[in-house]
């Protein structure tokens, strides 16, 4: 599981991690039943406070995306409800809205913004291919 923390971002770190794990679940990169790193391991890996990681896991458990099994660790839920993914989708829509607003304030047209998004997607797909 590769997560990327952007320091100094206006998006709080806990929300960055929550969003990225949710995305990995939604895209199938994290498969149902897969074990996540322990709170301690992930905290060390990302150099992020253990309490923050714990809150992220708890949040995702209460959203139904993850499940904690006593003494065994944290796993991707076998049957993640569609609704919990919808919450994260809403958040994404909100972020896209903010980006679109920034684009407009930079004087970009709708077409230009679409083009930039298409380029970003293209770039991302290239990266994904490289990883595989």
């Amino acid at each position, binding site marked *: 599981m590769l997560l990327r923390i952007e320091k100094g971002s206006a998006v709080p770190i806990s929300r960055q991690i929550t969003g990225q794990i949710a995305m990995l679940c939604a895209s199938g990169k994290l498969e149902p039943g897969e074990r996540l790193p322990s709170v301690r391991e992930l905290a060390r890996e990302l*150099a992020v*406070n253990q309490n923050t990681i714990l809150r992220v896991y708890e949040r995702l458990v209460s959203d139904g995306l993850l499940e904690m099994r006593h003494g065994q660790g944290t796993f991707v839920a076998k049957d993640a409800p569609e609704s919990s993914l919808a919450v994260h989708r809403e958040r994404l829509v909100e972020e896209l809205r903010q980006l679109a607003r920034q684009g407009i304030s930079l004087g970009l047209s709708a077409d230009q913004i679409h083009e930039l998004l298409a380029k970003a997607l293209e770039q991302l797909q290239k990266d994904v291919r490289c990883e595989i």
Partner: protein
Amino acid sequence: MNPIDKNMAAIDIQAVHKSFRQNEVLRGMSLRVERGHTFAFLGRNGAGKTTTIQMLLGLLDRDEGSIRVLGLDPEKEPLAVRAQVGYLAEDQTMYGWMKCGDILRFLAPFYPTWDHELALKYAKDFEVPLQQKIKHLSKGQNVRLGLVMALAHRPELVILDDPALGLDPIMRKQFNRDLITHLQGEGRTVFYSSHLLYEVEPVADVVAILKEGKIVRQAATEELRRDVKQIFLPREAMAMLGEEASLLDTRPDGEEVAVTVEGAAGAIEALRREGVEHRVVDLNLDEIFEAYVTGKVDEGEIGKTERIAIVT
């Protein structure tokens, strides 16, 4: 060692004043650090961070107010405090001619609880070259040797004065990892000062902002980010922001004004109630800090509001 009450704060500072001749550095400062927390103490250069830390260790006396560190008054029992606290000074100077291994052996007898095996283990974890002379260490190695020296007596509380100063980004990350694994992971209390806010955010449970000799805000890191936001709204709607929100900074933006508020939830609710068109922007910790320390509120003459750039 004194028996420790579990409910007692690790650090309790109340209404402390401290002046150096005419210069009043602390003006009734209060803060409280709970046990097991990682507490970031933030302020601009010269705000009084190091002065505060020196008083916590009994290296400086206060003029007024009270200070308790693990229940002890550092002014009356400085040695007892220092025996239970790990301390890394801002510019730790150590005997340059000594080898790292030698200084660890040299320090051991000063602390009744020194654990030399632990010292050697930390030295290994932190990649401190024991055979090397201190004067030949890099800045990063120096800080990490200081950290070994601060931790080997298994202190309950660790006080670090700007530990990230002079470390490169890779070393800062490594340092944060060490802090998370070796200190937070073991349930110790960490009190550290810093002015690199983006480094503080991932690590600290609680932050406190020192300005003009007082704490202007102390809050859980995530709560602070939820509570302080920038709101864009029409100038004439400023008055609708509600009672529970307090303004930290205002700046004009065309027909609108960008207002940074504390108590964002209340302000947004009030604007919604009044049906005022507005836009909410999340701020990063740097921006929040800036709003507290250099924010300017000029309700009458918003057009003339100027902001001072922060120097870090």
